[in-house]
């Protein structure tokens, strides 16, 4: 084995370079707080990654260059191709996929560490054995869970919740079983058993599948965020096992960011993370919505909507999941352009869980060239609602339901909503009166100042834009 041979593994020079690397990660993430600096921040973080990779390649005693080159080339080519081809609406499943391969890499590294420990003979030191076992379990769960999440979002696998009878019990047995076997490996550690280790990998893989399969499409963003945190933590654990400071810090950063995002999303849906994971609720068929009585709604066409909008001073557009599904972002932007050409002020109110992952709606609207300044967060826009002439709800439902505020018995009671009905007039563009994923009726549709425009989001927005142009 020939080596480029400059840096002693674990030596001061290598560690110093790893410190440079994780400092660049932190700097890069700090720049992510504003859209004008975020792009540079991403480049800074990528530079940190380059430093870390080069440092590792320069470690003394490294060999197998041919295989390293093959792995790097194949992985880079696949990653680059996928990232260039992916549509912005498919971003959640892309993140799931990258997350999965990260988790898979961790599980494989853990396996190799165990083999390394066995080859040295004798018991493996617990301070490397325990993190290795942790990395194996979490990495394997993350790999399989992310792949299922990808499959569901890509609609390769049905998005509805799929549960087998006794699911919770099976999961519990698997979860406890994995931990018990891990403890046995740690106790009977002379050397650690590779057979039992592989058993753990497999059981964790089944667990990853079973936990994510019953979760509905609408809850998938929370799951991806959680799995992202998991992969980060498993990378940190691999860092403990390999005594690599770059892995520990970078993995932990991802673990804490994933945790924050997961909790924020759960709060925005007013549900606990465990409810999302174990209730099999998201995307459930709309169970008996309301009393079934027919309540009168005001239905309008594109032309009426165009007139209401064109003669308003201020319009707030509330985009939701349906807009992403209908790929209506460009049509909506065209409608906004027509309004702005007539001097109407247009803003967008973005609920924290609009779209298929947090901030996803912002990406879709940015893709359609909506200026960043017009994208308002919920807390920012709600006080403005009473001064708004027309609010237009496009493909959003539960996040506008006044029941969340008014009805303490509602399943979504307490969920923060965008207060669209505070505006003088509300136009809801929606295909039917069907319920959102919470499976409950939306009182907004029946309020006196609400007009329903029953149509596909994309078609309706294009039509309204055309009508405004002709006014």
């Amino acid at each position, binding site marked *: 084995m020939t080596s480029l041979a400059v840096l002693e593994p674990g030596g001061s020079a290598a560690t110093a370079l790893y410190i440079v690397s994780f400092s660049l990660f932190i700097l890069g993430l700090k720049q992510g707080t504003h859209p004008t600096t975020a792009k540079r921040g991403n480049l800074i973080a990528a530079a940190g990654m380059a430093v870390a990779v080069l440092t590792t390649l320069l470690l003394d005693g490294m060999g197998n260059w041919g295989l390293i080159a093959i792995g790097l080339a194949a992985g880079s080519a696949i990653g680059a191709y996928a990232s260039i081809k992916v549509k912005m609406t498919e971003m959640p499943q892309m993140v799931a996929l990258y997350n999965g391969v990260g988790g898979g890499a961790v599980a494989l590294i853990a396996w190799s560490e165990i083999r390394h420990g066995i080859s040295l003979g004798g018991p493996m030191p617990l301070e490397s054995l325990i993190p290795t076992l942790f990395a194996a379990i979490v990495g394997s769960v993350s790999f399989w869970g992310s792949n299922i999440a990808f499959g569901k979002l890509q609609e390769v696998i049905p998005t509805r919740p799929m549960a087998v009878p006794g699911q919770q019990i099976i999961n519990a047995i698997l979860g406890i079983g994995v931990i018990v076997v891990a403890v046995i490996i740690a106790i009977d550690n002379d050397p650690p058993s590779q057979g039992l280790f592989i058993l753990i990998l497999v059981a964790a893989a089944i667990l990853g599948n079973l936990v994510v399969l019953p979760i509905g499409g609408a809850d998938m963003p929370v799951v991806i965020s959680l799995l992202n945190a998991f992969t980060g933590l498993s990378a940190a654990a691999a860092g403990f096992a390999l005594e690599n400071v770059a892995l520990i810090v970078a993995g932990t950063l991802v673990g804490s960011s994933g945790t924050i995002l997961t909790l924020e999303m759960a709060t925005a849906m007013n549900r606990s993370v465990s409810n999302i994971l174990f209730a099999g609720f998201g995307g459930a068929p709309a169970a008996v919505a309301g009393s079934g009585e027919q309540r009168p709604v005001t239905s309008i066409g594109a032309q009426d909507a165009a007139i209401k909008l064109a003669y308003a001073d201020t319009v707030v557009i509330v985009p939701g999941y349906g807009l992403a599904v209908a790929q209506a972002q460009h049509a909506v932007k065209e409608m906004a352009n027509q309004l702005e050409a007539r001097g109407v002020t247009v803003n967008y109110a973005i609920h924290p869980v609009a779209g298929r992952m947090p901030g996803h709606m912002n990406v879709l609207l940015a893709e359609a060239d909506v200026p*960043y300044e017009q994208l308002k967060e919920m807390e920012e826009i709600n006080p403005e609602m009473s001064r708004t002439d027309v609010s237009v709800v496009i493909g959003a439902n539960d996040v506008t339901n006044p029941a969340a505020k008014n009805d303490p018995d509602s399943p979504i009671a307490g969920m923060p909503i965008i207060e669209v009905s505070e505006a003088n007039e509300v136009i809801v563009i929606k295909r039917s009166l069907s319920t959102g994923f919470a499976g409950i009726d939306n009182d907004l549709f029946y309020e006196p100042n609400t007009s329903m425009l029953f149509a596909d989001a994309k078609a309706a927005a294009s039509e309204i834009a055309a009508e405004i142009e002709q006014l």
Partner: protein
Amino acid sequence: MSIMTEVTIFVLAVFVGFEVISKVPTTLHTPLMSQTNAIHGIVMLGGLIVLGYADDGLEYVIGTIAVAFGAINIVGGFLVTDRMLAMFAKKPKPKADADGKGGAGK
């Protein structure tokens, strides 16, 4: 590096992570998630170390796959984040109907 040094680093990193991430506005959460996703591609280092010091058949296979997985994670993650963030950057106002998608309807 002693285990307690590692734990110290870990705990400090938890706080740094919470501190930095909680300042990112909701608007940028998707690119943020994508960028942190790319950062956990750092596990490729582990793959490189495994493969670089491997000396039997199975290790070669495990190591090569781990490196390839890590490279997908890193390269794909940073590139796609860059694509997204480029959309947020200020652009010279283009004519929005250029891409034909939003066109004037019927």
